[in-house]
């Protein structure tokens, strides 16, 4: 086993972690171009949708919510990777968190930026989205705060604000270091962003306190955000949506997919930025165990949700249950069970298979599985409304697929740009005594 990164000399740590910022490889440029092209294709598809109307999607009566909403829940779920996990680890004082936290917090911010786009993309008249905001206007109109969509908007804006602060605070000492020796424009950028950080005792003390406070706040906000996302569904009286379990079920699913996203991103930056010494088997092993725990918890919720419906045998709910488990959407449901339960259970439950590669494969499976999970929750319910004569089917079109693909490209691009501008691992956290000068 490789030595713990904490034991390396600080000078070497600093060099290792600042190095990716000063070099742009041809592979990096190639990936950027690809991401840009996929993103541009998605933008073009959205342009077509804005111009022609929502008819270019596969939506139809009665399935009025499709994969835009699936993407929305998926990305908001991914955002639970960062902030929540990093906050828990920070508050419990887990020392091994050090190389993990910033990578995780960055996922949160970008996933939220992307997820927050979807409610707008999915609007029939997207250019009027600001009508949901309580802005002062001459007609004295307020948005309807009884609508769960307003709760949603409030929760997500709060979460984005909190996550950006939570990502930014621990960046400040690193930014001050980066401003010392650098190219002129970078020096200007980092100096402006470091807010005149000098590294005095008072500043360290304030930073420490601010981060603790933000960690506490962000935990509560993160739980509330995904609960509110779940309530978008649970407040409706549609069969199998109107369920009390949805709040905690969605929070669990969000943390589950969030950890999977974190493991995947860590595996990628470990390889691409040569951080093998910093992101060790040790880190992956701990996160893999956490992923396994969340998999079991998710499975328990899924069982609780479906068993109660099946035993209750309400015809309206059974129509949805049947569509999920035996009917049109059964392939989705059983693929979901395989990817979210069977794969992680085997790969992460058996110690010999719980390697970095094993954890990465399980994470990819979970990410796909959790995307399908949201599809299984959103679509079969709408396709089987209370009046059976109104039922229908939903198949997404290329426009929806292109926009979905573009968001993955956008995530990759944002993350790559971030990793070139800021050290993806918090450097100062490795300082034996941060308060002292090196």
């Amino acid at each position: 086993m490789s030595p713990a990164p904490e034991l390396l000399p600080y000078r070497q740590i600093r060099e290792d972690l600042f190095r990716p910022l000063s070099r742009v490889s041809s592979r990096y440029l190639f990936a950027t171009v690809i991401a840009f092209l996929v993103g541009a294709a998605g933008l073009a598809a959205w342009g077509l949708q804005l111009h022609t109307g929502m008819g270019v999607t596969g939506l139809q009566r009665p399935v009025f919510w499709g994969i835009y909403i699936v993407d929305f829940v998926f990305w908001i779920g991914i955002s639970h990777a960062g902030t929540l996990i990093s906050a828990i680890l920070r508050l419990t004082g887990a020392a091994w968190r050090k190389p993990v936290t910033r990578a995780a917090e960055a996922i949160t911010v970008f996933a939220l930026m992307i997820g927050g786009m979807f409610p707008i993309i999915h609007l029939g008249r997207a250019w009027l989205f600001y009508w949901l905001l309580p802005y002062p206007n001459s007609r004295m109109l307020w948005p309807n705060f009884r609508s769960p969509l307003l709760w949603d908007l409030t929760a997500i804006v709060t979460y984005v604000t909190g996550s950006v602060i939570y990502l930014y605070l621990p960046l400040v000492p690193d930014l001050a270091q980066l401003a010392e020796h650098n190219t002129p424009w970078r020096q200007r950028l980092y100096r402006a962003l470091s807010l005149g950080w000098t590294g005095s005792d008072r500043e360290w003390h304030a930073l420490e306190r601010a981060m603790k406070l933000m960690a506490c706040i962000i935990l509560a906000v993160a739980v509330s955000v995904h609960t509110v996302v779940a309530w978008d569904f649970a407040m409706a009286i549609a069969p199998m949506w109107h369920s009390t379990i949805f709040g905690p079920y969605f929070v669990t699913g969000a943390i589950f997919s969030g950890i999977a996203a974190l493991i995947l991103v860590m595996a990628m930056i470990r390889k691409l930025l040569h951080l093998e010494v910093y992101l060790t088997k040790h880190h992956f092993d701990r996160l893999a165990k956490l992923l396994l725990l969340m998999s079991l918890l998710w499975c328990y919720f899924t069982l609780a949700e479906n068993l109660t419906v099946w035993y209750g045998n309400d015809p309206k709910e059974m129509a949805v249950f049947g569509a999920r488990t035996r009917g049109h959407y059964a392939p989705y449901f059983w693929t979901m069970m395989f990817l979210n339960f069977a794969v992680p259970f085997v790969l992460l439950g058996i110690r010999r298979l719980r390697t970095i590669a094993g954890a990465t494969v399980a994470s990819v499976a979970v990410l796909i599985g959790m995307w399908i999970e949201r599809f299984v929750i959103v679509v079969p319910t709408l396709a089987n409304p209370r009046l059976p004569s109104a039922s229908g089917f939903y198949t997404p079109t290329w426009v929806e697929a292109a926009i979905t693909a573009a968001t993955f490209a956008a995530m990759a691009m944002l993350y790559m740009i971030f990793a070139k501008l800021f050290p993806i691992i918090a450097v100062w956290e490795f300082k034996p005594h941060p308060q002292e000068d090196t």
Partner: protein
Amino acid sequence: MERRWGMAIDLDRCTGCEACVVACHAENNLPVSTPEQAARGRTAHWIRIDRYFEGEFPDIKVRYMPVLCQHCDNAPCEPVCPTYATYHNPEGLNVQVYNRCVGTFYCANNCPYTVRYFNWFAPDWPEPLALQHNPDVAVRPAGVMEKCTFCIQRIKRAKQDAAGDGCPLADGDVQPACVQSCPAEAMVFGDLNDPGSKVSRLAGDGRSSRLLEELGTKPKVFYLQKG
């Protein structure tokens, strides 16, 4: 006293002829769909005829049920709209403000009767249908939700006419297009707050029940059917 508009539909009389559907299209400037779009569930009929089959072939019986917005007193579509595009007016109508709608689809998802219709594209009428628009009804743009209004334009017109004549609005003065065109006279429209109105009497009939009443939505459309 405020009026409370409601409707009674006698299912024992309904023949499923869809005259009400056509009348509604003509009266309310409903967009016309193509066969391809119709196959994808993109049609808009503010009133539709649901068919239910009883028995096995060849011993089969079809039941027809005209389903339109039930104008629920406790409408699930109303609280979920973030922009107040759908709300309850003082006469008990569940009204849709097209200009205020941004198209979140939430109202349609929360409607247990699935009677809300969306404008997937900008509406288009092939010639000569484009020449027969009703000037009293707005044409809806792409991206907004719409649904049955109980022909609110006819209610307004009848009130104006009555005021002009200097006499109160009598039962039967207001007839939505579907009610007017029903050849079997299966539909009756009127004020539920007036105990003497025909619709009030039918609503209290022993054959009367409401659709998905158990949800507590308090619909104002009463279906009459024997046993």
